[in-house]
């Protein structure tokens, strides 16, 4: 007998659209509200919802803690690395125009913003999940009666 069937099935149905929405927010930060910070949080929320319905251990199988720590570092280094890359190309730190200097509509700025927002999103999502894992993982699952 499956406990909380409605919650579990709803979570399964919602999981992919939430990730999709996170990616939409991530990549449309130039055009609408949102960006890496919001996208990262929404991405993390999908996994938190998963953890609420299926238990933390199941979520840790899908998204292991070690991968999150690597993602945290990669996200930050990706952002800083974009800055270093523009320096190596001869511009200032994070001077994106050098990425596509011949563009008439500042395509370099678009690329640069996209790259650093990606770094922001990866770091925020993995950090939020890490904090959640560590807070929630400190106590065994609570009984139904305790609520």
């Amino acid at each position, binding site marked *: 007998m499956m406990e909380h069937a409605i919650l579990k099935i709803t979570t399964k149905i919602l999981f992919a659209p939430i990730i999709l929405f996170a990616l939409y*927010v991530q990549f449309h*930060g*130039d*055009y*609408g*509200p*949102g*960006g890496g*910070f*919001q996208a990262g*949080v*929404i991405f*993390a*929320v999908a996994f*938190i919802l998963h953890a609420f319905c299926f238990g933390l251990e199941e979520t840790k199988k899908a998204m292991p*803690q070690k991968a999150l*720590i690597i993602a*945290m*570092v990669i*996200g*930050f280094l990706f*952002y*800083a690395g974009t*800055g270093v890359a523009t320096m190596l190309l001869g511009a200032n*730190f*994070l001077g*994106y125009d050098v990425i596509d200097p011949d563009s008439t*509509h*500042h395509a370099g*700025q*678009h690329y*640069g*913003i996209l790259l*650093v*927002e990606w*770094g*922001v999103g990866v*770091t*925020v999502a*993995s*950090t*939020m999940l*890490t*904090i*959640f*894992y*560590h*807070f*929630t*993982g*400190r*106590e*065994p699952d*609570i009984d139904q009666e305790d609520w």
Partner: protein
Amino acid sequence: MTEGHSTLSAMVFVDLSLLTMLFLVAIAMLRSRHLFAVVMLSGIYSLLSAAFFVSLDAVDVAFTEAAVGAGISTVLMLAGMLLTSRREKPVMPGRAPIAMAVVFITGAALIYATIDMPAFGDANAPANAYVGKQYVERTPNEIAVPNIVTAVLASYRGFDTLGEVLVVFTAGLAVILLLGFGSARGGREVSDQEDE
């Protein structure tokens, strides 16, 4: 003319009801001793603030408030609440005259400060003149992205945002260090001595 007037009063009505609800939720949070209710009310408070930010045309801030304030914070507060007791210890009212004095003086100072604040949407307000105006004027030519907030966040103030990401990263690192990554238990199911 009449249409514009009715839209204006509708906006005022929305703003007033949002602020009233914010006030009521804050009072309810203060009065409740049940921590689960307080956490849920703080989530509602964040969501109402997000709605209020939308009515102020600050959609990016509203989005962040809804995602971080109402979403992640509530979840983390719930997780933190599970590690402590479910009820706040009752406090005797009227036993903290110094605290009352501090609260009243600070509140009076804040209300006094609002008298000097520029009107909402005032073109000459410091927030809309100087550097803010420069961003609005220059973004179409220099960055060419439609969302000026993103242009400021990721390009003009890219170095600041790098610092913000470092802050988030450091917060995660601190939690890992404090709550035990690399311990034999792997940060799971720590059985602390329960104080009764």
